[in-house]
């Protein structure tokens, strides 16, 4: 059962509204009381913006958005780097390059970042890009740069992102962890990614590539797309400027305007998952596969109601469902912005995804991953093979070199 309909009964029994207590509307209370199950209830209309009705023309200026915008240039300049909240609908293709660099001083790090910033300009400026690298225009190519915990610590061990990820219970099969530099490249046109990445690596002669992964996203509007299991992903994420400020962007200090990114390369056992059958698959996610509506009821645009139960007391979103395990309310965490990409390796037939999330506090991810390792049935089908975290540098305005705000 859920909370029932508060309009049944009270409204009929109580047409008059007389003498409410100061500042209290009785009708408001009654309307309110039925919708949330009292304490910490779900029913989040606020954070949801339906992807199915996304109107690109309604978006805030400066943010390319919606699949209608696919291919159009994305401004690389601004308070934040591109590739985190813009374009609003992630490009269909990604290439993640994680490299090590033997830097020994912050000066060397700043030099490298400045070179990379100029390199990004030379690749993405629609009016004057390097045609020897990209013969045609760069389209919606976006390159996001992050630096790993060791380089962050060289600059200042108190900066966000200086702390490495801890070892998780699900890390037993981890082949690669960490890395000094992240180059995350995104474009609708898959053919530009490799050339652009190679050009940027040339600008960092001492770099050695640690791991590389290509990824692809199915069609979708906003951050929502189906993952390799066939379920909608990226549904509950911060979207508005206010939500992004609260949950994603670092708010103060030299890294203000930046964010912390976690990348996890996950091998997915899609065959075993498929063998569960449709009902059991839904129970693993807590949503229905066909349209994404929660098992607690409602439409695809509704949040899961984590407190809803049947009359016999059983939870409608199962105890070990992914939607329950990953929900930030249990860990008191801010909301992560997720823009993950799937992959299928033609040589090994491995299926998987690059989990990508952004948050202003690494702990938001850490607490959630611990909880998932303990209570998420989805983890039975996931093997994490690579894992790393990066400080995504603040964006650039004017002639400022990339990373310059960290000089202090």
């Amino acid at each position, binding site marked *: 059962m859920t909370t029932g309909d508060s309009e049944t009964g009270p409204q009929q029994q109580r047409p008059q509204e007389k003498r409410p207590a100061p500042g209290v509307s009785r009708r408001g209370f009654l309307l309110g009381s039925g919708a949330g199950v009292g304490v910490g209830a779900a029913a989040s209309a606020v954070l949801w913006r339906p992807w199915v009705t996304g109107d690109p023309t309604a978006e805030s200026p400066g943010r390319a958005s919606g699949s209608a915008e696919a291919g159009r240039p994305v401004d690389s300049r601004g308070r934040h780097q591109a590739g985190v909240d813009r374009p609003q609908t992630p490009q269909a293709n990604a290439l993640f390059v994680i490299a090590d660099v033997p830097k020994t001083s912050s000066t060397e790090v700043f030099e490298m970042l400045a070179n990379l910033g100029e390199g990004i300009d030379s690749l993405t400026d629609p009016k004057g890009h390097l045609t020897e690298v990209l013969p045609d225009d760069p389209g919606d190519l976006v390159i996001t740069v992050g630096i790993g915990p060791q380089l962050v610590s060289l600059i200042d061990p108190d900066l966000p992102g200086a702390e490495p990820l801890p070892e998780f219970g699900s890390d037993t099969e981890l082949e690669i962890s960490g890395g000094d530099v992240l180059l995350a490249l995104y474009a609708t046109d898959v053919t530009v990614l490799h050339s652009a990445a190679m050009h940027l690596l040339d600008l960092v002669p001492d770099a050695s590539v640690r791991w590389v992964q290509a990824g692809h996203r199915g069609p979708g509007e906003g951050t929502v797309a189906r993952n390799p299991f066939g379920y909608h992903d990226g549904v509950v994420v911060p979207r508005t400027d206010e939500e992004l400020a609260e949950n994603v962007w670092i708010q103060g200090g030299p890294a203000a305007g930046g964010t912390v990114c976690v990348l996890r390369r996950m091998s997915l056992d899609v065959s075993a998952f498929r063998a569960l059958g449709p009902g059991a698959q839904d129970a693993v996610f807590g949503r229905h596969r066909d349209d994404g509506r929660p098992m607690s009821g409602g439409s695809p645009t509704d949040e899961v109601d984590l407190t809803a139960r049947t009359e*016999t007391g059983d939870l409608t979103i199962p105890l070990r469902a992914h939607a329950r395990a990953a929900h930030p309310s249990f860990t008191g965490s801010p909301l992560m912005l997720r823009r993950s990409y799937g992959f299928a390796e033609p040589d090994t037939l491995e299926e998987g995804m690059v989990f990508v999330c952004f948050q202003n506090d690494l702990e938001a991810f850490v607490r959630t991953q611990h909880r998932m390792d303990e209570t998420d049935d989805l983890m039975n089908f996931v093997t994490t093979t690579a894992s790393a975290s990066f400080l995504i540098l603040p964006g650039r305005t004017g002639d400022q070199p990339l990373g310059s705000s960290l000089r202090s």
Partner: protein
Amino acid sequence: MSWGGTRSAVRTLTAIVGVTALTALSSCSADPDTGDNEGGPQDDSARADATVYVPQDAETINDAVDLVEPGGLIVIGPGTYEESVLIDVEDVTVRGEDRNEVVIDGGGVRPFGISAIADGVSVENLTVTDHTFYGVLVTGLHDENGPAAHGGDGYSTFDPEDFPPVQRFRFDHITAYNNGLYGLYAFNAQQGTITESYASGHADSGIYVGQCQECWIDVSHNVAENNAVGFENANASELAGVRENRFTHNRVGMTFLSNYREAFHPQQANTVHGNLVGENAEPHSPAQAEGAFGVGIGIGAGTLNRFVNNRIENNPSSGVTLSSEEDLAPVGNRIAGNAFSTNGVDIANIAGARAPAADNCNTDAPSTEPDTDDDATLLPEDLFSSCSGTQPAIDPAELPQVEVPSGVSFRQIDPPPAQPTMQDEPAARELGEIAVTDDVAEVPGSDYLAERSRHGVP
């Protein structure tokens, strides 16, 4: 973390409840004739103009709330009332004439029986049943903006600055049964009493107190049975006392929980004494959401509580379980002078490595310094080899295993036996603040409050 630092929180209380027959206030009834209330249930001397009788003066209880003045009294005659009652008038007393014959019935569709959102409200001597959400609630969490304000949006707890706790309440001689989640329910409230009441057939808990600091709420002389959980405390600290109750024949007798989903974690500093907590393996009850069964007292990251002089017996999984909640740990709980018998294990620690139990202790008498109670069985056996520092744990799979029966619909639980009805004259209650004492109740017998239980004498 030493117990001595929380001295103020280990006291118990007696509530100061003034009983005042209000005679000075004039009736707000539109029709002065109704104030005469011919055929009313009381003699003239006990009647006051401030009293509104249902159904004589007002057809429904909600109509009576519209009529009553602050500080007034509503007396409800025998009958079945199909309405959800909102009490938003301060210091009002709502009294049923006969506890068993005045029934607010949700018909399986209405969300709640009574919600009190004003300070100083008393609800007494009536029955609430068959609501989808809860029987009776008191809370300071309300506003005119609808659902977003009610319990937050699912991602953040409410801001106590915006919703100060409601002050002073009294739930007395209430029977709540077969409501969807909670029977008697108080959160974001302070300075109240929940006494002499009965709760059964609830899929969350019979009695629930949550989300308050310095709550000073007294929960005493109640019976809760055939619920998923008899009594639940989530993030409610400095309760005045949970004492001399009978919490038997639930799936779990009592819980003391800290969690991030609600305001005011961690839970701390309750004194729990003189309760009978037994036979909590009742199949005729709704399922506990996390599948718990056979547990007397669950301390889920509760901290700095005292469990003193309780009888904890015949709980086939464990008498007391210490566990963690995410990275919140059970810390500084003192278990003292309890009568344990025939539990699967008397005290077990299943806290996870991320939030290990620490500084908990079991002693053989409430007044002595930490000292192992030789009579209590422990898992692991060296759980209390030291009463300070991190303490060893077992894997939950190592607990005595019990088969968990399927849940029964909350609407299908058998109704409770008739409960004692109040004999004093109806009167408006003037509620004062809670006074505290250092008294600790004696260990109750196995037949404690059996006369009010459907399960009778064991």
